C-alpha cells in the first residue's frame, strides 16, 4: 500500500471546460485511492460547485484573478498559511496565476512541498527569464497533455529532461450510456436512415478549420449525394457566416445542418458516420476521444496532440492541416473500404480504453508523485 499523500490542487478557471474536467477527475480519483486531497479554486467557479457536489474538500477563499491584482497578495497569504497549517506533501497547480501564487507561497512557507504543474493547453509559453525560473527551477515536475508539448517545452528550455511527463487526459466512457436512442439525432433533424452523416464538432473559431470542411463538402456530395454535413458548436459570428458562404458556394448548403449547441451529444455520436476534425491547433481533443469510444471513424489533422490519438490508417486517418483535398480523400477511403473502416474503429476503441481512461490518468499521476518524492529523497 502506498503512503497516504497530502495534496493541494489549485485551479483558476471560472467556467467549465476540458481543464476543469481534468482537474475534477484527477482530484476525485486521487481521493478514491486514499489520498488526502484539497482543491483550491475560486468561489464562483463551476469546478467548485461540481467538486463540492461530489464530496471533495474544496477551499474557495481564493480568487486567482488574471492580470496583476491586489487580490493576488491575499491569495498568496492565504495559500501560504494553508501550506503551513496543512503541511502538504505536494502542491499541484494547473493554471498560470495559481502556479505563481502556489510556488511563491510554498517557497515562503518554509515547508517546501513538491511542486507539480500541469500545462493543459498548447498555446506557447514565452521563454522570458521569469517563466524559465518558474518552470525549470521552482517546479519539480511538469505534466503535459501531449507529446508535442513535451518536445516544445524541452526544445525551448522550459523544462529539465527527466522532469517532464506526458499524461493524456482521460475521458469517461459514455458509449455504453443507453439513455438516448440511436435514432434520436436523425429524428431531431429529419435525416433519413440511408443518409450518411459527416460531422464536425468544435467551437466555431478560425483555428478549428471549419472552412476546410466546407470546401471539401462539394466534392464529397458529387460522389455521395446522400451525405448530410453536421456542424455542432457555437462561436464567432463572422466565421460562422464565412463557413455558411463556403457551403453555399460549393452548392451544399441544403445538405448542411448547423444548429449551434446541441445538448444531446450522445445521440449525435450514436448516429454520426464519420467525424472530421481539421483543426490548425489542438491539445487533447475530447471530441476525437468521444468518437473513438463510440466507434466513429475519424479524419483529423496532424497537429498538436492529435497524432497521440490518431495513428494514420490504424486508429483513424491523419491528414495535413489546411488541406481540404486530404479531407475528401480520407472520407472516400473510409466510405470505400469497409474493412479499413472496421479495423480502424476497433483499434481506436482499444486505444481509447487502454490509453485514455480516467483511471490510467489518475494512476500515472499518483506514480509520478511517488517517483518524484523518492527522487527528492535521494
Amino acid at each position, binding site marked *: 500500500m502506498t503512503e497516504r499523500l497530502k495534496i493541494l490542487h489549485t485551479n483558476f478557471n471560472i467556467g467549465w471546460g476540458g481543464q476543469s474536467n481534468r482537474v475534477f477527475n484527477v482530484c476525485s480519483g486521487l481521493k478514491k485511492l486514499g489520498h488526502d486531497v484539497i482543491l483550491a479554486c475560486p468561489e464562483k467557479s463551476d469546478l467548485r460547485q461540481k467538486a463540492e457536489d461530489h464530496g471533495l474538500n474544496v477551499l474557495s477563499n481564493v480568487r486567482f484573478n488574471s492580470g496583476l491584482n491586489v487580490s493576488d497578495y491575499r491569495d498568496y497569504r492565504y495559500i501560504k498559511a494553508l501550506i503551513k497549517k496543512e503541511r502538504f506533501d505536494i502542491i499541484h497547480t494547473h493554471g498560470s496565476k495559481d502556479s505563481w501564487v502556489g510556488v511563491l507561497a510554498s517557497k515562503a512557507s518554509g515547508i517546501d512541498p513538491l511542486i507539480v504543474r500541469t500545462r493543459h493547453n498548447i498555446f506557447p509559453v514565452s521563454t522570458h527569464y521569469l517563466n524559465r525560473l518558474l518552470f525549470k527551477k521552482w517546479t519539480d515536475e511538469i505534466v503535459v497533455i501531449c507529446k508535442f508539448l513535451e*518536445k516544445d517545452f*524541452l526544445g525551448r528550455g522550459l523544462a529539465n529532461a*527527466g522532469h517532464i511527463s506526458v499524461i493524456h487526459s482521460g475521458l469517461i466512457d459514455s458509449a455504453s450510456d443507453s439513455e438516448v436512442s440511436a435514432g434520436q439525432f436523425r429524428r431531431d433533424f429529419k435525416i433519413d436512415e440511408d443518409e450518411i452523416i459527416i460531422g464536425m464538432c468544435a467551437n466555431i473559431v478560425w483555428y478549428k478549420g471549419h472552412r476546410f470542411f466546407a470546401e471539401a463538402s462539394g466534392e464529397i456530395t458529387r460522389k455521395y449525394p446522400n451525405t448530410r454535413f453536421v456542424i455542432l458548436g457555437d462561436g464567432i459570428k463572422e466565421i460562422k457566416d464565412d463557413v455558411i458562404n463556403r457551403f453555399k458556394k460549393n452548392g451544399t448548403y441544403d445538405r448542411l445542418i448547423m444548429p449551434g449547441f446541441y445538448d444531446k451529444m450522445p445521440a449525435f455520436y450514436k448516429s454520426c458516420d464519420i467525424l472530421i476534425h481539421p483543426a490548425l491547433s489542438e491539445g487533447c481533443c475530447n471530441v476525437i476521444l468521444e468518437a473513438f469510444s463510440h466507434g466513429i471513424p475519424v479524419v483529423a489533422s496532424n497537429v498538436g496532440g492529435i497524432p497521440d490519438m490518431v495513428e494514420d490508417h490504424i486508429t483513424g486517418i491523419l491528414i495535413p492541416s489546411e488541406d481540404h483535398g486530404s479531407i475528401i480523400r480520407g472520407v472516400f477511403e473510409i466510405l470505400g473500404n469497409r474493412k479499413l473502416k472496421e479495423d480502424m474503429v476497433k483499434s481506436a476503441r482499444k486505444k481509447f480504453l487502454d490509453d485514455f481512461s480516467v483511471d490510467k490518468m489518475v494512476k500515472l499521476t499518483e506514480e509520478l508523485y511517488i517517483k518524484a518524492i523518492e527522487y527528492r529523497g535521494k
Partner: protein
Amino acid sequence: MKKKLRVVHVISDLPFGGVEKFLLDLLPRFQDNLHVSICCIREKGKLAPDFERRGIKVDLCFFKGRLHPQSIINLRNYLKENRVDVVHTHMYRANTSGTVSSRIAGIPVIISHLHSYPEWDTWRQKKMDAFLSNFKDHIIAVSESVKKNFIEATNYNKDKITTIYNGVDLSRFAISYDIDAKRKSLGIPRDAKVVGIFARLIEDKRHRVFLESAKDVLKIYGKNLYFLIVGKGPLDSELKDLAVKSRIMDNVIFTGLRDDVPELLQMTDISVLTSRREGFPIIILESMASGVPFISTDAGGVGEIIKDGESGFVVPIESPQALAEAMIKLLHDEKLQKRFSETSKRIVKSYTIESNVTKLTDLYLNLYRRKSLKQ
C-alpha cells in the same frame, strides 16, 4: 556495499527497429547489477512504453540540432543531475551529441556503439566523427567489418575498439508454435512454401530486389509459393504497387508490423535479407535460432555469421538473378534446407543475449575502474 553503476543509454529515438528491439531484450537484463536508463534526443518513439513496462526509465532530452548549444547543455545538465557513471551512445546522431555533452558534464566513461556502417553524408561529418572519437573511452562495433571500416576511415586507435556481436534471446525461438493456425490466419495453404523478408520498408533494405526475384522464382517454381513481407515503413504503398504491377500480388503477403516474429519465422521455409547496408542483422540470428535457412546479400557483417554454402547463401548486393537462383536451389533441395537449418541452430548458440550482458557489464566495470584509479 558495492556501488551500482549508473548507465545511461543515449539514442535518437525508439522506433520498431532491429537495434531498438535488441536493446529491449538487452537492457532489462542488466538490472541486477546496474542502474540502467535511456535518454532519447529526438523523440521517445513507439517502443518507449515497452521499455518502461520492463522497468527501464525512458527520458526525453529534446535536441533542436545535433550540436545546438542549448541542446548540448540540456543533456549535460541531465547527465550531471543524475550522477551518471557510464554513458553508452548508439548510432551516429547520439554518438556525436552524446559524446560532446558527456565530456562537458565530466562523465567518467563514454562508450559509443556502431550498429552499422557510418551514415556520413558529408566530409564534415566524417571529420567530426574522427575528431570526437578522441573523447570516447571506448567504441563497440557490431561486426569486424564495421570495425575495420571505422578504423580505416578515422585512423582510430584499434585498442580502443572492440567487436561485440549482437545476441538473441534463444528461449523465445525454442518454443513450438501452432504454425498451421498461423498459416491459416494469413491464408497460406499448409503444403505451400513460404519465403519471408523481415525488415523495415526503407530504401536501404532493397525490398524491390526481393520482389523482382520473387517474380522470377514464381515463374519457375510455380504458384504454391508465398512471399511474406513483414514490417512497416515509408515504402509501403510503393512496394504494394510494384507487387500489383508485377502481377504477383496473389502470392505476396504484406503483413505490416508484427509482434509475433518467432511464430512467423517458424512457419517460414526460407528467410531472406536484401539490404545494401547492414551492421550485424539480428533477424539472421533469429532465423538461425528458429532453424530457418537464410539467404542474404553480402552487406556489412553478414559474411561473418553466414558462411556461404554452409549455413545459408550469401549473394551479391542488388542482384535479383543471383537471389532468385539461390532461392530456387534451396527450394528444390530439401536435404540442403535441413543441413542449413541444423548448422544454423548449432552456430547461433554462441550468439546469446546473455553473453552480451556479461561482455558489456565487464566492459563498463573495467573502464570505470581504470578511470577511477587514474583519478
